[in-house]
């Protein structure tokens, strides 16, 4: 299901001129229904949101200290924007998204088309394809850590099998390979999600269009290009943007496998923020990073709303 904004006007029950006490009790009922969610949303979502903005202008620390917290103006922002580590994390985050989005999308579209076409044991293959989705992310990371082993892990033996001569690749320990390795793992871990969405999209394309195209003499490629891809336009926009936003949030994989290294080559915005705010306890500074991160994600989320027409 693709999320849509809800219909503008919600149904309103007709009024049957309620008595004063009836109106009061209706008001109380409604308040009782709405209040818990309203309070919780305000305290745990809206308040922290504004706190992040406020804290980003202070030098607040996580653990209380014997000197007072001060306003520091835009100092945190100028420092963040002047820190080469921030820009490295920024580049890495985009690099990851740039690599993982196309890979994951082609994997999931390919798998979806396979499962949508004529295929024996289709439900078996579908169940298998969904397994990574069921496997907890930390478990996936542990399994891949074993496959990335040096010098004789599975992936190293595999590339040797295909004729690699240079001894072994230090997948996670080499600044050139660490991010691509994380990409491989991440694509494997989440492709079934996009696959399901594509599958739903494919099922929404009427078969008659393909039949009509065949009668007009269109070959398989033309059918793919003009019917499948065109029919999936909105699905594409949705999948690309949600996958990109997910990619921006990369954290667990790099925190566990590389700790952002080697040479900061897998440090991401979220990890940079957690390092500064939690490990180094600089809440004020890290709040500035959080605000920047929010702006980045919000931009892409709004882009999605702009690109998918409301129906």
């Amino acid at each position, binding site marked *: 299901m693709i999320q849509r904004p809800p219909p503008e006007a919600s149904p309103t029950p007709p009024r049957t001129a309620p008595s004063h006490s009836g109106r009061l009790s209706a008001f109380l009922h409604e308040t009782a229904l709405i209040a818990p969610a309203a309070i919780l949303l305000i305290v745990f979502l809206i308040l922290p949101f504004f706190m992040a903005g406020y804290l980003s202008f202070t*030098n607040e620390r996580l*653990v*209380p200290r*014997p000197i007072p917290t001060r306003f520091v103006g835009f100092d945190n922002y100028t420092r963040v924007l002047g820190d080469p580590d921030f820009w490295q994390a920024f580049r890495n985050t985009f690099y990851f998204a740039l690599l993982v989005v196309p890979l994951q999308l082609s994997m999931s579209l390919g798998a979806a088309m396979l499962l949508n076409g004529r295929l024996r044991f289709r439900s078996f293959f579908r169940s298998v394809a969904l397994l990574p989705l069921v496997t907890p992310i930390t478990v996936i990371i542990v399994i891949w850590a074993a496959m990335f082993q040096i010098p004789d892990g599975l992936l190293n033996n595999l590339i040797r099998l295909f004729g690699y001569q240079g001894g072994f690749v*230090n997948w996670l320990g080499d*600044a050139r390979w660490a991010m691509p390795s994380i990409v491989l793992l991440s694509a494997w871990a989440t492709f079934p999600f996009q696959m399901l969405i594509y599958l739903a999209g494919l099922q929404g394309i009427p078969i008659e269009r393909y039949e009509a195209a065949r009668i007009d003499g269109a070959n398989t490629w033309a059918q793919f290009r003009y019917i499948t891809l065109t029919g999936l336009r909105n699905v594409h926009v949705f999948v690309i943007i949600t996958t990109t936003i997910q990619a921006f949030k990369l954290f667990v994989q790099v925190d566990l496998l590389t700790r952002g*290294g080697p*040479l*900061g080559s897998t440090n991401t915005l979220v990890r940079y923020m957690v390092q500064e705010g939690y490990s*180094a306890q600089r809440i004020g500074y890290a709040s500035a990073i959080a605000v920047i991160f929010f702006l980045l994600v919000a931009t892409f989320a709004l882009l999605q709303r702009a690109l998918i027409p409301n129906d």
Partner: protein
Amino acid sequence: MASIVRFTLSTLLLLALASGAAQQITAWVIDGESERPFFVQVEEAFNAAYADDGFSVNVVRLPSINDALQAGFLSGDLPGVIMLDGPNMASYVWSGQLAPLDPYLSDELLAGLLPAIIDQGTYSPDGNLYAISPYDSSVLLWGNRSYLEQAGVRIPTSVADAWTFEEMDAALAALAELPEVTWPVDMKLNYTGEWYSYGFSPFLQACGADLIDRETWQASGTLDSPAAIESLERLQSWATNDWIVPAAAGDNRFFGDKTAALAWVGNWMWRVHQEGLGDDLVLIPAPKFCGDDQASPNGGWSYAIPAVAEHKEIAGAFIEFAMSTEQVALYADITGYVPARHSAIELSALYGAGGQGALMAEQSATIAVVRPVHPAYPVISSAFGRAMNDILEGADVATALARAARVIDEDIADNDGYPPFDTTR
């Protein structure tokens, strides 16, 4: 002195009985492979010794105790006794998290401590002792005798005749040629956290540089000085030559599959190394990394009492017990560390007369450099550790050190110089 202790203990007992509160305290301790047996026995021994007085301790071993402490300082939910990494003491005291230990410990104990233990545990602004470690640590080179002999490398036996940089460089080159050896030296790059700072700052200090200027409390000009850069460039050349076991290769290359010939690591690996190598194990002093100068780190995990702790007297009694001559000697013999009390050194099998620990004790006494006792230490350590990590992965040394120095100085400025440390210049 003994009478004072007895007096303190009976007061304690009265207090505890009078309050009628629970007389069990909890102690959070580190959970290392090598320390585990010690803590199992200290819990039993303390509870047996104080059963009649109605006190007991529940010793909880925590695998990631630093995180637990951070969470505890945040929530104010801390036990009677904690163990903290010695150099972090000043930071915790500065933010008001610890209670002084002096009122709870006997003069006899305090008088017989190694100077390094006192230096590490004393907070200079008020001169009180806030942390007390049962041991002193040291780092040296552990060698595989048969590989060294095959490669024709001289094996030094005392601090004075340690390898020079050139000699060690040549030794690594020779070891790299052996068919059994994939990596000449394991420098524990697989460790995280404090190791990168503790294990590698001696290379700076041997060359006349340091983590921070200990008079002005400024890192720029010291941590990124030409001496520091030159020293770490030397170290980096070993990594570039692929002479150091990479982090991803795991922990056991020296003592397990023996694809590494040397290991630069501390006392805590003693038992593991002995089991792995047997008679092939040799202890080699820290190298003279610059000219004729060498350095080794010291200090370690210490007992402390949180400011928020209840039953501080019982906590104090437990620390006094765990710091008794017998317990300190036991700690040393179980873990391989140097005992923190002169009296325990005599009692220890490893460090007493004729023990194998002579070289460790010699290093501790002659070339050890205490880590800066300053509230910014956690930042100093993480900034330098990060730089060290980058350097060993091939980053430009000058850039990495300049960045670390900037981060440290920025932190000190952000905290208004950590008063009153801003006036100790």
